[in-house]
């Protein structure tokens, strides 16, 4: 199949493109930075209609991953990329006669902060979702699912906490903080959360693309995960230890973390640039994410997408440790 992958310079996007290429699909990638992938590449912003139209030429299926992923930042920038950009890619795909569209979303679009214990996917809700990222992703998911129609099958797939070798977004930051002795748990890290090993996220997205035209699939949202919830404490420890860093031992109470996070958000908002580069160490959203259970009932997802994870959590950590040991992270 001729497939366009947007956001292929990211951790998951790159892995999806490589997975598709390996399976013999004809892949085009679209992103701002060079991807280094052995395939047709269009460089540009998803808000740029002409770049998107160029990338869309001859494409049969789209896996749309490009998004602004951060825990702070100006709301307008999130809206521009996540909402306007998505609308742009959808419109362009439809004009180009694309038949299959996989919109990559986030479980946080349906998370209003209360514990999710073996939950279903739940509808995206831009009003109750917490933080600019989740809110704009919720909006974009609603737009994507609304675009589903005969001949243009759209599915929203929400991978939960993707990790693996080469992940700078999550693992990289945790490891860096652990090395610096600044990795701590919130409320002892007792909350159970789901996660998705990178290879499983790739196969789930490819499977979604293959099944998107089926009546049980298109027009709907699915959470994907390894289906092996673990405590936050265990996940953070394993990530740190895989990279040879110390496991976190200190814990702060949730209220304190939340307050600190709210304060940091405010500080970052007042001084969005300058000396404070990157994201703040803690945000209210992150505090909530690290202190509240969120894991999902995977039965329907697996049945409908005809997919199951192939790499278990334990094997994933072995691979992560091997990758760090090999020095590839340097």
């Amino acid at each position: 199949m001729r497939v366009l992958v947007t956001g292929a310079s990211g951790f998951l996007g790159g892995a999806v493109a490589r997975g598709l290429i390996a399976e013999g699909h004809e892949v085009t990638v679209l992103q701002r930075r060079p991807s280094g992938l052995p395939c047709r590449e269009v460089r540009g912003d998803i808000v740029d209609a002409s770049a998107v139209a160029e990338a869309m030429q001859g494409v049969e299926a789209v896996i749309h991953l490009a998004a602004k992923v951060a825990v702070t930042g100006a709301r307008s920038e999130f809206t521009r990329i996540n909402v306007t950009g998505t609308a742009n890619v959808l419109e362009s795909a439809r004009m180009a006669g694309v038949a299959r569209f996989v919109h990559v979303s986030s479980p946080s679009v349906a998370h209003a902060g209360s514990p999710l214990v073996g939950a279903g996917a739940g509808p995206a809700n831009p009003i109750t979702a917490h933080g600019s990222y989740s809110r704009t992703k919720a909006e974009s998911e609603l737009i994507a699912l609304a675009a589903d129609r005969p001949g243009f099958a759209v599915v929203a797939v929400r991978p939960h906490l993707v990790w693996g070798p080469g992940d700078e977004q999550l693992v990289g930051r945790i490891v860096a903080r652990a090395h610096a002795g600044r990795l701590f748990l919130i409320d002892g890290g007792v909350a159970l959360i789901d996660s998705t090993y990178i290879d499983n996220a790739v196969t789930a997205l490819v499977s979604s693309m293959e099944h998107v035209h089926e009546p049980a699939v298109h027009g709907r949202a699915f959470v994907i995960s390894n289906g092996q919830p673990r405590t936050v404490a265990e996940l953070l420890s394993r990530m740190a230890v895989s990279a040879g860093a110390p496991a976190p031992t200190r814990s702060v109470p949730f209220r304190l973390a939340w307050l600190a996070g709210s304060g940091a958000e405010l500080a970052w908002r007042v001084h969005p640039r300058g000396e404070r580069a990157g994201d703040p160490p803690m945000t209210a959203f992150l505090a909530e994410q690290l202190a509240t259970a969120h894991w999902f009932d995977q039965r329907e997802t697996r049945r409908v997408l005809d997919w199951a994870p192939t790499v278990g959590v334990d094997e994933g950590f072995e691979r992560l440790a091997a990758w760090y040991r090999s020095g590839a992270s340097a």
Partner: protein
Amino acid sequence: MTEPARFPPAGLPGLEPRWSRIIEAPDFTGTMRSWHLLDTHADPEPEQTAPTLTVLCVHGNPTWSYLWRNLLARAPRSMRIIAVDQLDMGFSERSGVHRRLADRVDDLDALTAVLGITGPVVTVAHDWGGPISLGWALRHREHLRGIVLLNTAVHQPVGSPAPSIIRVARSGPLLRLNTVRTDMFVRGTTRLSRSFLSARPMSKSVASAFASPYRSAARRAAIGDFVADIPLEAGHPSSATLDAIAGSIRDHADTPALLLWGPNDPVFSDRYLADFIDRLPHADVHRYERAAHLVIEDAPSLVTDLLGWLSSREGNDPAPEVRGDLTRAAPKTTSLLDALAQARDLRPQAIALAQMQARGTARLVTWEALGLRVTRLAAGLRARGIEPGDRVSVLVPPGADLIAVVYACWAIGASVVIADTGLGLAGIRRAIRGARPRHVIGVRAGLALARTLAIPGLRLSTASLQSIAAQGAEREAPELPDAETEAVVVFTSGATGPAKGVVYRHRQVAATVEVLREHYRLTESDALVAAFAPWAVLGPALGITSAIPAMDVTKPRTLTAGALSDAIAAVRGSVLWASPAALANVIATQGRLTAQQREAFTGVRLAMFAGAPVPRAALVEASELMPRAQIKTPYGMTEALPVADIELAGIPDVGIAEGVPVGHPVIGVELAVAVLDDEGRPSADLTLDPGVTGEIAVRAAHVRDRYDRLWATNRTASANPGWHRTGDVGHIDEAGCLWVEGRLSHVIVTSSGVLTPVGAEQRALTLPFVEQAALVGVGPRGAAAPVLIIVLAGAGRRGRSPLLDVDRTDELRQVTGVDLAAVLVRGGLPVDIRHNSKIDRTLLASWAERILAGAGG
């Protein structure tokens, strides 16, 4: 005020707008009135075939059709559920007319005529809806398929004042204030509701929904009228109608009836249930222990139970099958009193009973003395007013008095209610209240415990037994009961919910005696030392000398090695029955035995430890103490004991299969399993196939007759005629050995299949740092995440975090073979009082779920 019927506001929890209809019908005066009612077939689909059953639901005061919402929501399409709002109630018309009981029956009759209800009907009613529905039912006998009543009344039972709550509410000026001018009565009704599971009050949104039709004094007028219409005094305008309805209930003798009751109702307490049982002796009864007036709100399983009963009224409730060759020999019938009478004739001066006292002395009773005492007591108790068929609560600790009282009651044909202290004091009171004994016989503490219970008959102290027997000496012995007579009500341990009363008939107790005699080859040359409560009374029925050690038999951990040795020595005991907890203490105190005391143990040929799983190490120690004894652990339950047993030598190492082996079935017992499906539900059919995990079912002559006043429990447990579903899960291996894997309610249903807890727990216990372990599931059934909860061995120093460290968590994943989401550490695990060993995994699961939910959980 007058106001036509209207639709309920949108958004009431659980109420579907599509059910609501407004119907015009004439009332008792012939005036057209508008009714609001709920109807599952409000919008009949044309292609739909007519419903096979119509269910007419009548609410009481001050509720409305909302009460029945969950029944409407879950009824199959083949049933049409109609739930009316009575006139001037709920969202039906406010007519301003004071409607009396007879008027309301006429009103309902006219409405159902307009609705064109014909064909099979079952009435379902709550509170004062009860008499109205019964009045309606009497006029529609030809269509009536059943009557269902929830917490209601048709009559003030003799000698009982009206419920004081109603009396107060009705007293003159208070009436209008309570019921009409304020919403005290409306709000008070829902405030009494407590969920059976969570013990939490009703949610605010549901309570508000109940109050929603009664927001203003004007809309509440009929609530006051309703209360005023309760005919508490003679000459009340409605008393003739109520009496007529009450009197005619007996005409329903061939109408199936179901009584569903919340006993914690300050208005319609147990005595009203008893009144209905008296009028409808054929009725199915289910008492939801802990539920109150709004029993349908309090007991989550009520709607399921009710639908099950209704579907059997539809006549499509096929009996499940049993696969395999399951022919069975008819059980031998013997009387429980035969062996005693025989021993009295043949060995009058031999010792029947040795009740051990402190310091090794014994109270010895010969067969002659025991036989005489039982006969005289029976005649004396009969003279005092204990009738055949009466239930007698016996609050006497195991010993000579208990045995005399039990056999005397059996000789009369009275049934003994035995609530042991293993239930806890509150549990004993609940258990007795549920069994409704007519009389009580107790030691002083026992009578004190029963003081607040409504015991209509005798309250006899054990101190008076002598004079009762003397009285009986001058009378003829009562006629012996037949084998079908009820013999005993005993109680489950309450480890999985409130204790349930378990009823045995004479033939079933006699069958237990026969199984023990045959399976353990007991002969008159044996002597029994019984330190295990349920069997402590069976010695005389076996015709075997028995000794009861100096201990509190219901507190097994009070048995010392010395006291046990003294009991063995007193009767040259050859067979020992004890509980695992008693064994543990015997082992712990054996160091204090004298050489002579130790010697006594060598005479034991058979030692059995029953009631709960026994650690293998304890059995090994027991065999060292009793080198010549065969060491066995029987498996069974309050409902059937023994079912199977296993010898120490036959217990394989753990970890080779799922669960713990409990051995082969004893003589006369057949085993089968109801296979668990992917959702962890047991199949309707039973199978004998080895190796498949399912709910264990037992068939034997000594299985209980039924659960007491627990219709729905009986329906489940006796789903396969002749079989008892145990609620335990396990499998039968190729060699016919039964393995127990846990309780059905503790099965964990993950997205990748069903897990039973015991096997994984046993494997976890092989790691040196694990002292106790419990496997539970958190999250929704079907997608649950397995979590192990452990108590650390040794000093067991726990950190501040409930999480076990990652390395040892991994070790536990390896050894259990379960993909554990987490391992949590606790200082101890919650267990039942009676056995001190049955882990409450349900409680642990909700604890784990709360911890692992994190903030806001």
